[in-house]
């Protein structure tokens, strides 16, 4: 078993385990922090699939941005949200959670079924890509190429997203405004 394999399993276990903890925990703060772990583990998995830039972005944007935002929102929403949390039962499998769990499992089951049956590794285009050397190798430097592509091939989506971000920014700011004058 190679190191990579070990690393993959490690990362996967951390990601899924922490995600599970997020799902199971009654404590919002703990689940938020556990979410960090998930995100980090995911970043690790990105690295393992040779997307180091994406991994870095993940860490910066999520961990640096989104999580901070969440923590802020949580703190702003005051004690009531905590009180709601305290009321929830401590059992792992609560009856009222059962439907959700069943749906989730069913989804997982169906997804897994599809993935196993799709034999994705034998897909024609993947074989093509392997044959025509389009697969990343660990020695490749990807960031240059990525930057060029973003500015050429994906320029339109890039611009659209930037406008979207602007709108989101304005919207968020508007929503968060005090309603004194409203």
């Amino acid at each position, binding site marked *: 078993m190679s190191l990579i394999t070990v690393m993959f399993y490690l990362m996967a276990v951390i990601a899924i385990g922490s995600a599970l903890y997020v799902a199971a925990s009654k404590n919002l703060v703990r689940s938020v922090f556990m979410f960090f772990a998930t995100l980090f583990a995911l970043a690790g998995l990105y690295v393992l699939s040779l997307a180091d830039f994406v991994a870095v972005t993940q860490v910066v944007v999520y961990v640096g941005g989104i999580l901070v935002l969440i923590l802020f929102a949580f703190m702003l929403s005051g004690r009531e949200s905590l009180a709601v949390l305290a009321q929830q039962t401590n059992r792992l499998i609560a009856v009222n959670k059962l*439907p*959700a769990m069943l*749906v989730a499992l*069913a*989804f997982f089951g*169906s997804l897994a*079924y599809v993935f196993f049956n799709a034999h994705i590794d034998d897909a024609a285009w993947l074989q093509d890509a392997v044959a025509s050397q389009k697969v990343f190798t660990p020695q490749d430097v990807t960031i240059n190429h990525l930057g060029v592509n973003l500015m050429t091939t994906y320029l339109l989506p890039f611009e659209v997203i930037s406008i979207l971000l602007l709108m989101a920014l304005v919207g968020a700011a508007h929503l968060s405004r005090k309603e004194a004058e409203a």
Partner: protein
Amino acid sequence: MTSTSPHIDTVVVTCTLLAAGLPLVASAVNFLLPAKTGKASGWLSVLAILGSLAFAGIVFNKVWNAGEWSVQQEWFTIGNTKVYGGLLFNNLSALMLLLVSAIALPVHIYSTAYIKPAEQNRYFTYLSFFCFSMLALVVVNNLVMLYAFWELVGFSSYLLIGFWFTRDNAVKANKKAFIINRIGDIGLLSAIIILFVQYHTFDLAALFGHNGLVFNSSIHDGVWVAATNQLPSVWQFTAFAGIFLAVAAKSAQFPLHTWLPDAMEGPTSVSALIHAATMVAAGVFLLCRVYPLFNTTELDILAIVGCFTAFMAATIALTQNDLKRILAYSTISQLGYMIMAMGIDAYASSLFHLVTHAFFKSLLFLCAGVIIHEVQHIKDEHQLDIDPQNILYMGGLRKKMPVTFIATVVGCLALVGLPLTSGYLSKDSILIQAFEWAEAKAWYYKILPVSILLTSGLTAFYVARLIFKVFFGEFKLKEILPDINLHVSDGSLAYRLPLILLALCSLFPLFSLNPFLYEHAWLFKGFLPVDHLARENVYHTIVPAVVNIMSVFVVYWAYAVYIQQRKLVFTQNSFLFRLSYHHWYIDTFYQQVIVKAVMAFSRALFWFDRQVIDGLIHSFTSAGKFLAGLSAWADRYLVDGFLLLITQVVKGIGSFFRSFQGGKVQYYLYSMLILILTLFIIKILI
């Protein structure tokens, strides 16, 4: 009118109808007149009965010893049976017709004085109705009508006993009288029905006449055979038993005698007519009418019952203190003589005694009425709380009431049977024939004449006791209340005349010119069978002598006891005394055992009716209700429940789906996801 005999005599028929009908008319007129008529209604009835007597005399004159014949008219038809109404003429009916009207007349006259004018209208309505029923009873020619009048006689007696209907004792007594008579009536009815079924006719002449249907029927091997029908012989005996019951009830014989003493609650004049002379004699009359029906055993039974009743009643009369009750028991006793006479085949003597007894006993009752009336006066005047009929309060009345005294003595002598009275003739004839009858039979049959002789002695004693207590000595009330003033007298002519009339009729000349030989009495001869024994044995001399000597001795004994106050009588707390004083406890027995049992049984049946039968019905109802409840429950919970279930399901589904639209975001999500999953799974499966 159709006739069954060639000797048809329209005068006789008309007179008979008038004799019976006049009292009915009087009764009806009195009934319809307003109650205020008072004395007028009394005289109306007297006139009616006078007319009856006159017509009865004519009838008697024509019919006596003129053979038997009858007239009849169809009354109604039922099925193939024709029921007739008709009259039967023979010596018996003629005699009875005359006797009843002859006794009724003095009693009517007496009553006009005895009953208060305000009550006379009602009284004479009843009394005339009684006379009508009684007169009709003795002349009818068939059993249906006989029964009808038989019961009407009882009914009028009921009315008269309860004449003073505000007195509780009176109404209890009349109820008792009627019910006991009813027992006899159903006996008679059963007998009539049996005879009708056996012989297909109700006609008395056809049934019991010479060579009649009864004469020609016989009993063979337990079957009672007649020309028309045959029945098991037990029914012959049942017919006898029915007639015996009827006789016992009407003529107050053991065991149905208890009503007669109680019936003394009625006015005394009524007692004189009905309960001494006429109605009670109807039983004997009935026996005469149906005499051929009986066989030897049955006659023996009659004789025994008659003898026993005579003895028993005489013993009871010894200790009674109520004037009228003494006479009542004496009546029962004398009726016992008559019945016994019938039983020992002394048919003529029985009737003879019936007639003589009717006169002297009604005489005695009327005398008692005068006495009671006077004592009642004293009672009312001084507001005393005494029983005016109690002989213990009386005494010494002979000087104040000479006519009454003499009349009473005549009556009593006749009752005892001392010579020169009518009672001597008739009673001795019975006694003599009793001995003759026993002569031909086994030794134990001798008990009968001996005990009847004994009874005769008892009679002498209680009669003497009565006379001495009432008329001799001092007036007892005076001893208790010395300042009492006694205006006691014989009363008006309306009182005295009947007494004198009846006293004369109680002496021998009316019946026989020879005061010592009953065989010479015309009345006796009138009923004599052709083959009757002549005076041939020693009893004819011995018996009268013994009886008279004994009677005189007994009377002297009583004199010694009651006037000279010698203690020669048994003590008042001995068993025998109590037995006698309490009427042998027969009444108590009936009341305690029979009446109570019947009432208890009827109450039990009512309970049964309410609880068991109705309970059964109710349990059916409850079962029905239960079933209904069950089906209602099923309807509600099963049938309706099913519907409800469907609606619930629909509603559940509805609300389930509604919950998706409940504004809850997560549910939307759920539904979306489930939908996707479903599609997914379907996609996979297909």
